[in-house]
Structure formats: C-alpha cells, structure tokens
C-alpha cells in the first residue's frame, strides 16, 4: 500500500479576513509500502496541517492524497454509515484522544465491530484481548476508564484502537511528545515492533529530530509550509544540503548528535 501526496496546498484566512496564511504550498512526496517516513519541522511549519490532510480531517485547497493510486476521501461531517478507512491516526495527547465516558474495552469493541466483518461475539472478544495484549495492556484492565491509566498506557490503548481498524498506513502525530521521558523509549520500541508484526507503513510526524532520526527510513524536513529537504535518514542527517536542515541539526543537543 503506497501513499502519494501530490501538489497539496492549503491556505488559511484569518477570522478578520485581512490576512492569509499559506500553511502548505505544493507539497508532493511518496511513501513506499512498509517504510517509515519521518516528517520533521518546528511549530508553524505546516506538518500538523499536512497530517490532518493525509488523515482526511481536512480538504486541501489543491492537490490530492492517493492511497494505492486511489484518492483518499476527505471525511465528511454528514456520513450516515460507518466507513472503513485505510489511514489511521495516533494523536499527540493521549489524555484527550480517548472518550472519557467509555471503558477502553468498549472503545476498541466499537472499532472491531465496524472493521471485524461480522465476527461472532466470542471471536470479537478474542480479537479485542489480542489487540490489547499486543500493546501490553492486560485483560483485567479492559473494563477500566481512560482516566484510570497513565499517559503511556493511554497511548498504547490509542495504538491498539487504531490497529483494530486494520490500517495499512499509520500516521503518528508526535506520538511520544506528551509522554514522560522514561516512557518514550518503551513506546517507540512498541511502535517499531508492531510495524513488523502488522506490515504497516508509518508516517512519523515530530518536532524532535532525535526520535525521527532513530525511527525513520526517510526523512522530510519542512519549513514555512514547504519541503526543504527529503532523503534517506542517513543522507539527511550526515550530509544535509539545505541551510535550514543544517540549523536544525546543529540545534540538537550534542549528545543526541552522537558526540
């Protein structure tokens, strides 16, 4: 399953209509099946807008997003039936991405119910327990509500919920930035493990070059709504061509640059 983004642009008009912000201008790139693309940039570079567009939460002004050559539909506010979607999104803040009034078992059951192709009740339950155990949440915790979990555990639950939708492509939007430092490595390890288990393609969006460098096959650097550099992780980190990329790398703490 291949993701292609072709000539995507997005412009926002301020509320008072006197200013326009070009959030994205003519963004094009591809992610090959089974690869991890890291998208890195600072606040305001357009990476969040881009991930919303890839997920289908927002429509681009021009350009298109293709999944296996087929246009990836934008999510309408008026859908009368549940629909399967092949790109799933894991959000930055695990505290706000689970419905506080739903035990986590129910949250995953809801997704399995839609994507599970009419599984029998028993098989459905087995699948839910399997998904939870893959992310390290034991079955006796399944009846708890989100507020009874730590940030790291909630992010695991969010990942399990995304996996319940059998995604081909998982879009990870700053998946560890809101977590405690000692928990981050654990979640990154989990994500890398799951990618192999489920044959996933990842798009890993982050401001943190250290982590992007660790996980990505390819890295794409964004600045002011444009792609300034794109290449294999090794190429971008070891011999950056663009001035902004160089500044970004120089700004990393010396330790993480491997010094």
């Amino acid at each position, binding site marked *: 399953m291949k993701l292609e983004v072709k000539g995507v642009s997005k412009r926002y008009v301020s509320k008072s209509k006197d200013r326009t912000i070009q959030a994205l201008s003519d963004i094009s790139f591809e992610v090959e099946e089974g690869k991890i693309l890291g998208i890195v940039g*600072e606040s305001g570079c357009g990476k969040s807008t881009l991930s919303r567009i890839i997920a289908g939460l927002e429509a681009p002004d021009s350009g298109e997003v293709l999944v296996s050559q087929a246009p990836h539909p934008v999510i309408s506010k008026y859908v009368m039936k549940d629909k399967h979607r092949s790109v799933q999104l894991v959000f930055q803040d695990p505290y706000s991405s689970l419905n506080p009034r739903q035990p986590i078992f129910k949250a995953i059951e809801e997704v399995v119910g839609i994507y599970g192709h009419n599984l029998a009740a028993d098989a459905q339950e087995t699948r839910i327990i399997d998904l939870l155990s893959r992310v390290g949440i034991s079955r006796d915790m399944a009846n708890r509500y989100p507020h009874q979990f730590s*940030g790291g555990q909630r992010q695991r639950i969010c990942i399990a919920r995304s996996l319940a939708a059998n995604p081909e492509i998982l879009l990870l939007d700053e998946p560890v930035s809101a977590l*405690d*430092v000692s928990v981050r490595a654990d979640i990154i390890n989990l994500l*890398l493990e799951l990618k192999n288990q489920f044959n996933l393609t990842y798009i890993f969006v982050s401001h943190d070059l250290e982590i992007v460098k660790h996980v990505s096959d390819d890295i794409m650097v964004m600045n002011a709504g444009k792609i300034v550099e794109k290449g294999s992780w090794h190429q971008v980190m070891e011999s950056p061509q663009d001035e902004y990329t160089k500044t970004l790398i*120089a700004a990393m703490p010396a330790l993480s640059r491997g010094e």
Partner: protein
Amino acid sequence: MSLLRVKNLTIETSLDGKTLVDDVSFSIEEGESVGIVGESGSGKSLSALSILSLLPNGVNKRAGTIEYKGQEIASDKLLDIRGNRISMVYQDPMTSLNPMMKIGRQIEEVLEAHNLGKDPARVLEALAGVRIADPEKCANSYPHEFSGGMRQRVMIAIALLLQPDLLIADEPTTALDVTIQRQILNLVNEQKKQNSASILWISHDLGVVAEMVDKVIVMYAGRIVEVGSIKEIFENPHHPYTVGLIGSLVKRKHQQKMISIPGTPPKPWTVIGQCGFAERCSQVLPKCSQEKPELISSGAQSFACFNPIEGALL
C-alpha cells in the same frame, strides 16, 4: 561555604499531607552550575520553587531548611533576596510578562522595586545584553509583539538585571522550538561566563542539561536517586533509572530496540519507605520494596540504590 544549601526538604500537599518531595538535600557552590533532571511529578520544580518560597497553592513545605551563604533564608529577608540575589526564569514565556505593560516599563519596575530608581540606560543595556537587536524599539513594545524566544530573552534580561548570585531556570526552553532553544542555551552559557553567576537548571531533557551544567541531580518519584558530575553520570551511571534514561539517549542503533524502562513512574506518596523505582527496575532485590535506600557517596558520585549497576556504560 556553599552559596545555597537545601537540607532535608520535604514537600507535601496541604489538604491531605501526601508527600511530593521526600527528604531532598543538595548544595550549590559559588559559580557552579547544577542541573536537576526528572520527569513530571519527580519533584524537581517544587524543589526549585521552594528555594524562593514560591510553592503553588495547595502545596507546602513540611520540613527542611534552605540556607543562602550559610544563613537560613528568613521570610522577612525573602524580598531582598528574591529577584536580587537569586532570580528565576520560568517555563512559559507567553505568560510570564504582563501583557498590558510595555517591556521597558516592566524592566524599570524591577529596578524601582529594589530602590534603584529610574535608569533608562540600564534598561537598554540589559536588553542589548541578551542580544536583542533594537533595544530601544523593544523597550517601547508590548509583549504580544514578540515571539516566545524573544520574550524568553526579555525574561533572562530581567533575571540578570541585578547581577544575581544564582539564576534558577525552570524548564526555560521546553516551550520553545529547537532552533530557538539553541539560541537561548548559547545566550545563557555566554551570560554565565560574563556574570559568573551560579545556575540551577531544571529540565526533563538530559541532553539539554548536559550542555548547561557541571553537576547533575537526578530525581525520581520525589527523591534524589543519583548525583554526580556530567562526565561521571554519563560515563558511569549507577542507579538503574539513570542507566535507563541515558541508555535510551546514547546507546541507540537505527530502528533497533532502544534501552527502555518498562512501566510508568509512581506517585511519590505511594512509595514511602521503599525504593520508588523498585517496580520498574531490572536489578530489583526483595529488600528494595521493604526499605528506603539512602543516598550514599562513592567517590564524587552518590546514588540511592541497594543494587547499583557497576561498569561503564559507554
């Protein structure tokens, strides 16, 4: 004589007496830069805030003394010391300046509060000192006209205005972009050399702390678990928590499993009388969940662990 000495500091919630910081002691020598590293809830910020009696509502100091140049800081002396001998820079530059007041006026106010009168020249000098290109224009602007990085510069200018002996920086770059963080780190390092001030740098980011300080205090679940020089801590950490943190930073191979710490940090008050890290520790002994390990020195380094890791990490 140490510049600042914190002894047996214990902080609890006012309402139900839950321990948040448990028996923390450390000292800062004149001209020394010390970092406190820990994650949210480790007690690092509370420990720093209690130095100037700035603990938030609902939290109070149960025990402990704080000595400045060998004398306990009395509450009536606090106003002389605060902002003058010891100053502070906070995490969020967007809310630490008064949005209704011009920047120059806010700096002037600090001078007035310490009875130094109006001194426009000194205001401009302070702004120029933190590498603000057009100090005059800046002094005549309101905070909202500036980015987070510029505002943090202004906060640093204010903190250094009265040439303090100690600058406490509480996660001053966490809210900033990495390239701006770099500029601020360079600026503080530069100012440190010029002013020969001591620095207490609080952060969750070991990488940042490593560049800013000589000595690191590692906190976990309300307690100090390890203290040592940057070099020692990075090359030869002993506490399994420190080993896990540093290991995930320095020993990583592309897309391979990183050294990680399973589980989540506990609330400090749930691990009284035992090692706070016992539940997540790979080196755990039966003793660890029955007895609290004290901080013991081994050479220049000290750590609180019954079963420390020996042998160099790098």
